[in-house]
């Protein structure tokens, strides 16, 4: 990790010094344990703020749309895939973007940490040799890193950036995972059960729209939930059905565009499972259109181009 941090700092510094870019978007140390935070660097000497760690969980593609200046971005696999989709949707000018690719070993899910600690407060943490040491008042626990990674990272098939100008470090091995086993469980449910599950999850929604705001692909100038003429859904949360409707439409609108980065799920302060819906959509798009979002600049977006029905459904690069 420290080598990656160093490499990122040097690269950023050089890009700024040589005036190849005016801004580098990366991550800095956060204010909470296991947390890194998005960071905007404009001066070469500030490049030392940049770090790489297991808390670089935000999708930085979110900060790249319609930027006037030349920008470099630190991008892990999922960020790079969102960048690909945003270039295709004319939201990012490829000529004005330098992608500093970082192979990603997954990010730590602080909700899993909270669950594991069952009420005890995490005050300090350290990741070493595949183990995470969690420290707090009167406790010190060591947990395998794998146990604490986000589910999105556990099923991720593109940990290495698919689009980059400069690559930091060596590519990481792609995990062998079962093809959408997690979605299969949801799919076997009867419609009434699915509905009950979503209603239960979304009964906790406070309509803060953190999911929408955290999603790099949610960039409609006017979100349908904000329209008042016509008013598509109730602005109040008195009726859970409206919360479900909001998420259902959001997921549908992301079909073929969502790269399953998990940003929405992570952003939700209420811990609502949003990923089941979006991931089901990712699976459907692969099966129906043979399309995986964000892996190629050349492949046309499935819902904006003639359907190629001969494409095989794929789960990863091997077509497994």
């Amino acid at each position, binding site marked *: 990790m420290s080598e990656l941090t160093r490499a990122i700092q040097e690269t950023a510094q050089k890009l700024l010094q040589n005036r190849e870019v005016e801004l580098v978007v990366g991550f800095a140390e*956060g*204010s*909470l344990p296991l*947390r*890194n*935070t*998005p*960071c*905007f660097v404009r001066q070469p000497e500030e490049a030392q703020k940049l770090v790489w760690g297991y808390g670089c969980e*935000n999708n930085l593609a*979110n*900060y790249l749309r319609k930027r006037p200046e030349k920008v470099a971005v630190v991008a892990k696999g999922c960020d790079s895939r969102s960048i690909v989709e945003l270039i295709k949707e004319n939201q990012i000018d490829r000529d004005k973007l330098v992608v500093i690719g970082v192979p990603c070993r997954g990010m730590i899910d602080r*909700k899993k940490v*909270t*669950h594991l600690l069952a*009420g005890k*407060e995490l*005050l300090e943490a350290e990741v070493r040799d595949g183990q995470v040491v969690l420290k707090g*008042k009167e406790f010190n626990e060591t947990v395998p890193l794998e146990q604490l990674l986000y589910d999105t990272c556990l099923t991720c098939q593109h940990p290495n950036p698919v689009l980059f100008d400069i690559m930091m470090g060596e590519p990481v091995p792609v995990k062998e995972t079962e093809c959408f086993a997690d979605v299969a469980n949801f799919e076997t449910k009867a419609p009434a059960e699915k509905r009950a599950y979503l209603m239960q999850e979304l009964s*906790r929604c*406070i*309509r*803060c*729209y*953190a999911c*929408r*705001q*955290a999603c790099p692909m949610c960039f409609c100038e006017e979100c349908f939930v*904000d329209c008042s003429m016509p008013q598509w859904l*109730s*602005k*109040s*949360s*008195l009726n859970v059905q409206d919360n479900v409707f909001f998420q259902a439409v959001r997921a549908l609108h992301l079909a073929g565009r969502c790269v399953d980065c998990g*940003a929405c799920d*992570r*952003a939700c*302060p*209420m*811990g609502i499972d949003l990923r089941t819906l979006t991931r089901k959509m990712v699976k459907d798009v692969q099966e129906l259109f043979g399309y995986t979002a964000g892996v190629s600049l050349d492949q046309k977006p499935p819902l904006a181009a003639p359907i190629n029905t001969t494409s095989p459904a794929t789960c990863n690069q091997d077509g497994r």
Partner: protein
Amino acid sequence: MLVNKGQFTDWLNQLIQVYQVYAPVKEDDYFCFKKINSGDQATLNYTNSKVPPKEVLFPRSEKLFCYRCENDGVQLTEQIDESKKIIVGLRPCDAKSFLLLDGVFNSDKYHDPYYLIRRNNTVLVGLGCNQPAATCFCTSLGGGPFATEGLDLLLVDIGDRYVVEVLTDRGRELLSGMELPAANQEAQEAARIVKEGAALSTQVNLEGLKSKLDVIFYDPIWDLIHEKCLGCAACTYTCPTCHCFDIVDEAEGNEGCRIRNWDACMFPLFTLHGSGHNPRPTGKERFRQRVMHKFKYFVDNFNAIACVGCGRCIINCPVNLDIREVLAEIQGSEVRSDKQ
């Protein structure tokens, strides 16, 4: 007074017969204030609730009135909640937030019947914080882990029992059905030790902040400080003092209701004019508004900072935009005269 924890659950069960009792209830890995039907649903060993108890008095969505258009006119139905409520186990910071909200909903200019009727019918039973979180900074804002301001009763957890501090007549009345012994010396000593042990690790320097904010509306600091903010309402909706709302009519056919919903200054829609003009067009103006409202405008209007240091915005921000760091950055900035 002294109550053991088993007795306490019985007491809640008694109260439920008369009052709507709200208490922290575990949901997944966090806690929210919910109406409980039995004393054992309350979980009092929690750090802080996810959504503040303000939602009991100022719900996320509430019907103000309903209407029905008929041939000879409009029939209105009032929707006033006059039920008697108790909030049990709220933290001193959240109790303080009600005093701040009182300023807004019960000012010289405006009395909000919906909030005020609930407020007057609600008794507050606080719970001191034996172990404040690392994100708590209530003492910087004049509060404290065992502050009593705004509470009717305060519980101090001393292990198997609570020492109950009676703070108001309403609080005393609540205990009238219980024959509770006075806290003996041993219990008082235990409470003292617990209180002394509850040190806060975080302090925020607020000295001179207001006079600085008075003159930095046009300062370039706002150009960058908001940059990573996503513009969601996770901070405002989990803030115990944020109180902005929007009123909409939700109607179908010839009947409907007027509904008040939480709203947030972080949304572009919040200030969008009918003309299409938006006086706060970007994240810069919106983020500045949030900081200014809490630490300047509220001070101008009510002589108090609209922050109680609960740390929820720090914990819930999806990009770790930490208000403590924002304030430190403002404090550290050069003082400029406010010129556009």
